[in-house]
């Protein structure tokens, strides 16, 4: 059971994700965006960063990378697919999650710990949590303001306050099946007491426990 951690040009959180996953007993390997298959992997994480320099719109170019074909097939087949921060933006642009992410309401780049609350535990990123559970993880984004004009999307984690204008205070959104989840704050950066919080482990343990032994 190995998680593919996809690296686009400009991705910069891939090592944090691998370190957090392996630290929790999982297995994760970096996969370059030019790869055309996910043979040998059972799950995918699209990490944070600035894929293709965020040119045009965040995630707009990344969605056409060759690896996104197999990622979409994983999503369709019910395998766990998670996007963190920029990865969330890529999943929306790819149409694997509803809605889109636009600039924060106050046009500020937000880089601080935020309190979030789990509102839906029937997803690959929240199944180890409790409904209403409060967690503290870092938010680090400029385009973190999720909008869903046609009202689609399951909000599965909410901000306790309203840092960026996101619809329904959405910090994480899932597809109908709950196997594709995008989360704007960074669980992988809250997995060691040295980093100020280990609350991110709830999300990553959920992810690991949702992997089915091959």
């Amino acid at each position, binding site marked *: 059971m190995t998680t593919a951690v996809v690296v686009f040009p400009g991705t910069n959180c891939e090592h944090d994700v691998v370190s957090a996953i392996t630290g929790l007993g999982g297995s994760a390997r970096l996969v370059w965006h030019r790869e055309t298959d996910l043979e040998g992997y059972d799950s995918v994480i699209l990490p944070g960063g600035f894929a293709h320099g965020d040119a045009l719109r965040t995630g707009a170019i990344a969605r056409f990378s060759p690896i996104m074909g197999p990622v979409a097939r994983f999503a369709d087949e019910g395998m766990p697919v998670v996007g963190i921060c920029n990865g969330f933006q890529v999943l929306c642009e790819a149409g694997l999650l509803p809605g889109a992410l636009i600039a924060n309401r*106050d*046009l500020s780049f937000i880089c601080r710990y935020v309190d979030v609350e789990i509102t839906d535990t029937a997803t690959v990123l929240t199944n180890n949590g409790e409904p209403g559970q409060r967690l503290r993880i870092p938010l680090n984004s400029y385009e973190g*303001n999720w909008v869903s004009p046609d009202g689609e999307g399951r909000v599965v984690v909410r901000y306790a306050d309203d840092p960026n204008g996101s619809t329904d205070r959405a910090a994480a959104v899932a597809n109908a099946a709950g196997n594709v989840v995008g989360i704007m704050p960074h669980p992988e950066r809250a997995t060691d007491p040295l980093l100020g919080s280990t609350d991110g482990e709830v999300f990553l343990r959920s992810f690991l426990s949702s992997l089915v032994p091959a």
Partner: protein
Amino acid sequence: MKVRVEVTRRPEIADPQGTTIKRALQDLGHADVSEVRVNSVFYLEIDDADHDAVRSNVENMCRQLLANPVLEDFDIELLP
């Protein structure tokens, strides 16, 4: 052939950049500014003289990449 493409965020979607610019203009004394929207304009050079073909190709480009259909509309103008 030169083509101008304007991509506009639909009016019901927030435009935080436009809102900030509006406030800045109001702060500068332009109290009559009631709304600012920021759009993107692309100028393309297409190596094809067939107007219908060019328009149809550029429409495809807009749907594929230049506009996000969740948020945005587009307008294509073939330039002389």
